[in-house]
């Protein structure tokens, strides 16, 4: 209802303005009607057709005013902002007044990364050009390799290595074929090596480890045993020979085997 009243008022003002702009013609033409309307309005019974027309007219004017005011404000704001940006240093202001750490904490990096199409990014990257611009020598020179190696747990690394598989892939024959034994032996200082050896102690250890008396006893016993077996065998053969001889003398039937019980 209030808007309707305002629209009506605006319509009235617009109508009056139109009348004023139309100077005498509209004035003369509508004076009577306007007066009659004013009279009727004053009497509390304005005609609805007029009110409705003025409301429609006022609504149109209000919309036009809104649009005009909005356009005016936009242009004024653009000019003001341009002017302000020309004066202000936004970077300095952000650095001074914004808590970048707090903003960074609030950023969901994972979500950002998940939305990023890294494949597309990488496809656009010219790695050759990047690498060609990197000063690898300088980068390596700045690396403290000792510190890096000190932090490496070599035991854990070696524990994960399958040495059997590695050794199985090594072609020892090929390696051995490439080794020149003559060159290796020529480099060996045998005299120096022998000088470091305590040959006397080694000899004593060997003699202690080898039970020489027992070996002599066994070898002597073996020789004696073989000699005894030889004597026994010869004795048996001689027995047989004597038995055959006596058998022939006494004309006994020939017996090839020794006499059995």
């Amino acid at each position, binding site marked *: 209802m209030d808007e309707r009243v305002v629209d009506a008022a605006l319509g009235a003002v617009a109508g009056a303005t139109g009348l004023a702009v139309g100077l005498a013609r509209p004035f003369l033409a509508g004076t009577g009607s306007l007066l009659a309307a004013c009279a009727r309005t004053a009497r509390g019974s304005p005609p609805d057709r007029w009110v409705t027309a003025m409301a429609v007219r006022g609504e149109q004017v209000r919309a036009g005013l809104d649009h005009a005011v909005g356009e005016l404000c936009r242009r004024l704001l653009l000019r003001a902002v341009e002017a302000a940006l020309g004066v202000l240093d936004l970077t300095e202001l952000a650095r001074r007044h914004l808590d970048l750490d707090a903003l960074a904490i609030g950023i969901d990096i994972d979500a950002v990364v998940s939305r990023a199409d890294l494949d597309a990014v990488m496809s656009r990257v010219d790695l050759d050009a990047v690498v060609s611009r990197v000063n690898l020598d300088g980068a390596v020179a700045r690396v403290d390799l000792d510190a890096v190696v000190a932090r490496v747990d070599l035991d854990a690394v070696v524990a994960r290595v399958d040495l059997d598989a590695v050794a199985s892939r090594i072609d020892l024959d090929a390696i051995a074929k490439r080794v020149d034994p003559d060159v290796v032996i020529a480099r060996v200082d045998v005299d120096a090596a022998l000088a470091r050896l305590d040959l006397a102690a080694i000899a004593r250890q060997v003699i202690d480890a080898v039970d020489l008396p027992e070996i002599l006893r066994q070898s002597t016993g073996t020789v004696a045993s073989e000699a005894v077996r030889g004597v026994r065998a010869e004795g048996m053969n001689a027995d047989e020979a004597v038995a055959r001889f*006596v058998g022939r003398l006494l004309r006994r039937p020939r017996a090839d085997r020794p*006499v059995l019980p």
Partner: protein
Amino acid sequence: VTAPPDHGRAGVVTRLLAAVADTTAVALAAALLYLGTAGARFAWSPVSFRWPQPTQVVSVVVAGLVATGYLTIAWATTGRTYGAGLLGVRVLSTRYGLLGWARSTLRALACVVFPVGLLWTAVSPTRRSLQDILVGSVVVYDWHRDGGARATAREPGGAAMPGRGP
């Protein structure tokens, strides 16, 4: 080298060689006895010590006793003397058991008194000497180094075959 025989009867040559070895052993034992007697005499009276000079009869008797004792103990306990062990023969009864003390003593005396009886082995079709015939013994080949008790332990009825074991 011929394989060990399976307890066939030992012939005259082997037995003579064994007898020679035993004679040597008895001679050594008699010499040791002589030296032992001399040592005892020297220990008893060094000042009046003189080497013993037994008569021939005494020497023969003592040597005979040594030989008899040596042969008796060897045959009664293991069935073999040193010479028998060296030549790989063993003296057993006809049932292939040990002779026992009585027959061992009788056989030893017979061997000492009449050693020529050993030569009958060459003539005997069963390779037995006169001493074997007298006491009922045989001499068999046995190259195994086992004890005399083993001779009577294996076969049922004491008829063990010496040298048959591993």
